[in-house]
């Protein structure tokens, strides 16, 4: 009984999703394995098929030195590399290191900004995949435990 009900719920939810989703969304697949991976290399392997990245000074990542609050850490990444296919943010010490991954179609600038959560002080790596390889740059972001919390 429980079982079937849960199945039914799942089904109906999927339907609801399908119904209201734009076509484009159905095309793109959320890289579950990469996001579930508990290691940075595991995540990159699952996402890009390799965990070796070439350090590049053509990637500019703006992150704070000391995060005011680990729950909201502003990250912005831009690169002068050519033919960028995707930009990903990896937080090595997070339980699941891959925080977000952005697919960049032709015409879209390799320039993104978002806000992420960090559990503790960690290297934050910007990983840029281009037609000619996988490049990265890293910065350490300190996460401190507050006193009275601003």
């Amino acid at each position, binding site marked *: 009984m429980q079982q079937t009900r849960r199945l039914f719920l799942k089904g109906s939810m999927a339907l609801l999703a399908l119904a209201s989703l734009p076509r484009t969304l159905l095309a793109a697949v959320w890289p579950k394995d990469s996001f579930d991976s508990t290691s940075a290399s595991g995540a990159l392997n699952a996402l890009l098929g390799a965990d070796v990245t070439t350090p590049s000074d053509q990637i500019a990542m703006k992150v704070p030195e000391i995060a005011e609050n680990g729950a909201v850490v*502003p990250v912005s990444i831009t690169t002068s590399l050519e033919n960028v296919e995707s930009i990903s943010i990896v937080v090595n010490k997070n339980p699941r290191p891959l925080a977000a991954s952005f697919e960049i179609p032709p015409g879209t600038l390799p320039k993104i900004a978002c806000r992420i959560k960090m559990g503790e002080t960690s290297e934050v790596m910007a990983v840029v995949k281009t037609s000619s390889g996988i490049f990265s740059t890293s910065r350490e972001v300190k996460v401190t435990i507050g006193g009275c919390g601003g």
Partner: protein
Amino acid sequence: MVRLAAGCLIFVATVMVYQDAFAGPAEDRQAFVAYFESRFPNIPFDEYANGIYAIDQDAREQWQEIETFPPYEFTIDQGRDLWEAKFPDGQMYSDCFNGAEIGVRQFYPRVDPQSGEVETLATAINRCREKHGQASLKYGGDEIVALSAYMSFVSRGQPINISVSSDEPRALAAYEDGKRFYYTKRGQLNFSCADCHVASAGQYVRADRLSASLGHPTHFPVYRSKTGGMVSLHQRFSGCVRDVRAKPFALQSREFRNLEYFLTYMSNGLGVNGPGARK
């Protein structure tokens, strides 16, 4: 009997000290502002409206990034909807706040001429609801905070303009009570508001830098990254009192309303810039 006498003596003594210990509100404020000017000579007066971000550069950049598209925008929308909704009698909040679409935030808290009590924006909102037969909103709850956020938003840039009328003794009494609260050490840690936010402003408490009290009330309510939600000024008071391990007073209690009255008067002339984003 002896104790009674002692009590009386102290009564008299206290009253005397109490009298001459007090400069007027205007002098208090001048001294308050002057203190921070000499403490942080490079910080222009208007900057104090930005709280700790007037002092902490690294934090300021993160804050500015968040303020480019702050999460409280959803709250402002909610507040606008509430503000524009009609009461069953066809009237609206604006009818209580002298038709003000232009902000009125800068005039609160004020002393209500009838009751002689300090009326904050929050109590004024509930008084308006009462007047139109509506149940009071829960202080610190989503709706009243959203309304305050919207009312602050439409008041942005208006200089805070609180008066402690000399011909209203109850106003002066409320001001003095708030002032006493502000400078009184309390709790197991034995801190006063001033210990942290005057004497130690800009210093670190573990990982946090202490903000200056000048400008404290200008930007509330705030969206806090810590809770991922909106926090009213009195909720913040409550948090501070808790932090020094004293039992907090109720939101909108007389103690907190009088404190807000004193604190906001100290910030006269600074621009309203609420709602704000804070850690």
